[in-house]
C-alpha cells in the first residue's frame, strides 16, 4: 500500500501544506488512521478516494496544529484551500493526486521529458540540448509521454465535480 499510494499522498499533502516535513507528518498520520479505520472501510468502494480523503484531513489537522502551537502564518493559503473546501480547490488537489499517481507508473524517460517541459518550462530546443538528443526525438518523446499520461489517467481521472468531496471526510 505504501509503494502504491505514498507518492500521491505526499504530493497531495505537500500541495496543501507547502512544507515537506509537515507533508510527511500528514502522510504518516494518514497511514496510521487508515490502519485504524480499516474495519470501517467499505471494500466495494475504491481505496484511492478513501485514502485521499484521509490524507487531506490529516493535512488539515497538521496545518491547524502548526498554526496553534507555532503561530505559523506562512501557511495561510492552506486555511483558504482546505477550510473552504470549494470545488475548484478540491478538484485541483484530486488532480495532483491522480497525475502524481500516473507519473509513478510511467517510465523514467517519459517522466523526464514531462518534468523538463512542464516543470522547468524548457523549450523543446532546450530539452534537446539538456538531454543531448535531436529535437525530433524530443518532440516524439513529449508526444508519447503526454499520450501515456492521458492513457494512464484514463477512466480513473475523474472529471470536474467527480472528485472525492469534502463531505466524505
Amino acid at each position, binding site marked *: 500500500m505504501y509503494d502504491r499510494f505514498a507518492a500521491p499522498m505526499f504530493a497531495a499533502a505537500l500541495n496543501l501544506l507547502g512544507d515537506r516535513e509537515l507533508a*510527511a507528518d500528514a502522510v504518516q498520520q494518514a497511514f496510521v488512521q487508515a490502519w485504524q479505520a480499516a*474495519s470501517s472501510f467499505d471494500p466495494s468502494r475504491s481505496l484511492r478516494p478513501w485514502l485521499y480523503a484521509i490524507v487531506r484531513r490529516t493535512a488539515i489537522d497538521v496545518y491547524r496544529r502548526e498554526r496553534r502551537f507555532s503561530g505559523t502564518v506562512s501557511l495561510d493559503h492552506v486555511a483558504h484551500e482546505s477550510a473552504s473546501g470549494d470545488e475548484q480547490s478540491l478538484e485541483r488537489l484530486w488532480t495532483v493526486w491522480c497525475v502524481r499517481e500516473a507519473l509513478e507508473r510511467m517510465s523514467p524517460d517519459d517522466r523526464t521529458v514531462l518534468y523538463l517541459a512542464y516543470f522547468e518550462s524548457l523549450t523543446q530546443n532546450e530539452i534537446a540540448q539538456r538531454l543531448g538528443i535531436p529535437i525530433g526525438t524530443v518532440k516524439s518523446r513529449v508526444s508519447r509521454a503526454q499520450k501515456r499520461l492521458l492513457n494512464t489517467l484514463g477512466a480513473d481521472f475523474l472529471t470536474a465535480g467527480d472528485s472525492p468531496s469534502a463531505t466524505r471526510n
Partner: protein
Amino acid sequence: MKDRAHADEPPPLDRRLRDALASDAMWAPPPDDLRRRVLDATLHAPGPPPAPPGTRRRRAVVTTLAAATLAMAAGYGLGLLSARDTVPGGTKTVALAGTDLAPRVSGQVLVRETPSGVEIILEVAGLPPAGRGRYYQGWVKGTAGTVTIGTFHLRDSREPVVLWAGVDVQGYPLMTITLQQEGKGPASSGKVVATAALTP
C-alpha cells in the same frame, strides 16, 4: 512548453494538467525515512477494532492492510518489531540464537501466517556468508518430523532472509539453521548454527 505552437508538435495538455505538472508537489519525492516512520507509527498505534460479525469482506481488508504493513516490516528489518512481540494478522516475532558452532549469531524471526504457507523471515546478525560450495538451510522440527524451509547463503546481502514453511508450525515448534555442503545430499548436515523456538 514555449515552442509548442508548431504544427508538428504534440498538442498541449489541458490547463489543469499543466498546472499540476508545474507544481513543486508533483515532483517532490517523499522523504527517504518516511516509510520507516509510517511503519513505526503504525506498529505503535492501537490496532483496528474488530469488524462486526458477518463482515468477511471487511475483515479481508483489515487483513490486507495488516499484510501491507507487515510487508513493509519485512523489507526494512525486524528490529522495528521489537517493541511489540505480536502484531495483527497472525504474526509474531521470536528470538534467534546461535549455537556453540556460531556463538555470535543473534537476531529475530518473524513468523507470519499467509494463505499459501507460513512466511518465516530471519533478521540475523553474526552469521558469516556461506563459503563457496556451502550454504545454509532452514528447518522446522517437531514430533511430526523435520521439514526444510529453504536455503540461503548471505553472500551478497544482509537483507532479511525470507523462508517458507508449508506445514503448520504449531506442530514443528523448533526452527534450526544448518550449514550444508553442496553435493552431500539433501539431508541435514547436523551442523546447527542457530535455533529459534517458534511456539511457546
